């Protein structure tokens, strides 16, 4: 892999890592949800810093260029995270529905009781 590209990718990953860290500090994102992004950053950073590792794995899996392997890995991890978020949204949806129903039924009961 070209050194310039490696430096470029390395800088981007380091910045992304720092950005996620400050987001945690400023409570923009919960640590539970940030962890997986940090893992992705670190993983890609390790492979970027140790190209021998990346080349070994790419050869093993039949990728023509190690950088393709790097992109593929990043893409794959992002997809996994996005699916996890979809699942989370579904769950939140269900929880909001249950709370809405409980609240509406409680309000109805209260109104029926206070009616003359």
């Amino acid at each position, binding site marked *: 892999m070209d050194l310039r590209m490696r430096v470029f990718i390395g800088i981007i990953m380091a910045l992304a890592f720092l950005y996620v860290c400050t987001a945690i500090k400023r409570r923009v994102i919960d640590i539970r949800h940030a962890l997986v992004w940090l893992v992705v950053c670190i993983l890609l950073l390790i492979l970027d810093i140790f190209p021998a590792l990346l080349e070994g794995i790419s050869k093993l899996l039949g990728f023509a260029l190690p950088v393709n392997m790097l992109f593929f890995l990043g893409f794959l991890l992002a997809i996994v995270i996005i699916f996890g978020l979809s699942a989370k949204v579904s769950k939140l949806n269900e929880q*909001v*529905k249950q709370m*809405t129903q409980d*609240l*509406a*039924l409680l*309000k*109805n009961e209260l109104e029926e009781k206070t009616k003359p």
Partner: protein
Amino acid sequence: MKKLAIIPAYNEQGSILKTVNDLKQNAPDFDYIIINDCSTDDTQRICEENNLHVVNLPVNLGIGGGVQTGYQYAKTHDYDIAVQFDGDGQHNAKFLDAMVQKLVNEELDMVIGSRYIEKKGFQSSGLRRLGIRYFSWLIRRVTGQTITDPTSGMRICNRDVIDIYANDYPRDYPEPESVTSILKAGKKVREMPVEMNERSAGVSSISPRKSIYYMVKVSLAVLMAGKR
């Protein structure tokens, strides 16, 4: 025997009073509860001014969430029988007593009011009928039983099914999926002929744009319900 009519209503200011009056006149031994699904029109005001029994959902949940709230109400208030009775004037209360009779006499778990046994009353448009025939076929493939009107919302059920639906009910376009899941749970479901009206006001939840989503979502849901 305590009987409840669940009336899901979303923006039904033009027909909600008529629906309730129809129930009071033609099925007087039914209690009713309107589930106002966060309507943006005057539905809530009309309900309150006329002192109707209403549960106001603070957030719009869609038809499935609304109907499920009705089943939860039926469960907590200890009803023996619940019927879903649409707030848009499509259903006729005069058929309810016969449906109760059938449910009790034949010891069934659910009776569905079908438009397609005697083919009387409003029959829906051609394309929709085709869709309904398709779902009927799909449900027969999945459960081995024939439901001629799987999208009918007019369905009366006993405590067992009230319990099931209070816990688990599909979110949108619920009818074909929910009947499949109780058939799969071994519940006894029969249909009887009813006549329905064209809606007197309001708009259908299935617009042409949504019909593709509807077909795909409901097909998948029926197949999944068959596997559970």
